[in-house]
């Protein structure tokens, strides 16, 4: 009789110990890592990691927050090599950053200036590097001439560039062309002012 009471007590104690154990045992989580990476232009941004009851701001190059599998958190700093080892394949898959180019035209024509013809080669090779570009070509004019004639000229400039790109093998449906006439002067002028910097196309690629 006495023995069975002892046994029962022992069993209860063991059960209590077990429960205390499960309450304090660290829950296993997948390890996590968050890091700020400097951009191609050297710009360093910031991220904020919110976890249960804690918020940490990381705003330095390769600054990182690591959550271990036992749930502990530490702020740390990675090296460029560590980032490359862990995230090399991932970073390599980042698409090219959306960017834009400006090319300039001869007065009253849809023909590029000599300098812009050279520049065009660089722009087009950059466009061709992108696997599936979304290209927007917007033509502009200076303020010489009527609204109608400038609308026509600006569109002709954009269309001319579009045709050249199609000639390079970029699918036609990926390139949109539009003319803004003299509505969006890069260099603000009075009406009827000949201004080379306003005679341009803007090519945006995503």
């Amino acid at each position, binding site marked *: 009789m006495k023995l069975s009471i002892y046994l029962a007590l022992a069993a209860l104690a063991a059960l209590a110990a077990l429960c205390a154990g499960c309450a304090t045992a660290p829950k296993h*989580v*997948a*390890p*996590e*890592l*968050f*890091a*700020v*990476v*400097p*951009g191609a232009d050297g*710009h360093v*941004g*910031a*991220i*904020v*990691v*919110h*976890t249960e009851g804690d918020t940490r701001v990381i*705003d330095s190059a390769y600054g990182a927050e690591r*959550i271990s599998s036992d*749930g502990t958190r530490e702020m740390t700093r990675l090296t460029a090599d560590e*980032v490359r*080892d*862990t*995230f090399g*394949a*991932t*970073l*390599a*898959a*980042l*698409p*090219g*950053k*959306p960017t834009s180019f400006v090319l300039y035209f001869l007065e009253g024509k849809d023909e590029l200036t000599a300098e812009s013809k050279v520049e065009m080669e660089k722009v087009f090779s950059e466009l061709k590097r*992108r*696997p*599936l570009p*979304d290209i927007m070509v917007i033509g502009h004019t200076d303020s010489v001439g009527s609204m109608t004639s400038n609308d026509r000229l600006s569109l002709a400039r954009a269309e001319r560039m579009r045709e050249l790109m199609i000639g390079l093998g970029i699918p036609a449906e990926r390139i949109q062309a539009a003319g803004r006439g003299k509505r969006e002067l890069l260099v603000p002028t009075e009406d009827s002012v000949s201004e080379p910097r306003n005679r341009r196309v803007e090519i945006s690629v*995503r």
Partner: protein
Amino acid sequence: MRKWIIAAALSVAFPAMAADIGLIKVSKGSVQIQRGAEKMVAAVGSGVQASDVIVTGADGSAGITFTDNSLVSVGPNSVFAIDKYHFDTTTHQGEFEGNLKQGRLAAISGKMVKQSPESMKVRTPSAIMGVRGTEFVIQVGEKTN
């Protein structure tokens, strides 16, 4: 009666709302898009929609451009869900909530974050990360290489 009209209107409006919010620009190895019960191969040029899940195999990686110009890439053995996404091209206000359940992700934030910091968030099993800009990486799970 009125309920039926609303339901009918919604069912008509809904397909129009499932517009592409992004485009697969890079796809290497095994990459899939899970949309509801549907699974499809994510080829270069595939559209990405809100609530899609991107799943990559051991040899897979994918790069996506979003309408606010944010860029996201997913590495091998990864599962990345786009829980919420909307972006107003006029005001640049928006919300981007991703969920990295497993694997690796790299991203460069876009116009939305420039307009309002932390409008882009990435959840993981243990944390929520807000993006103030611009480039960052996240890993969930053990190192596999």
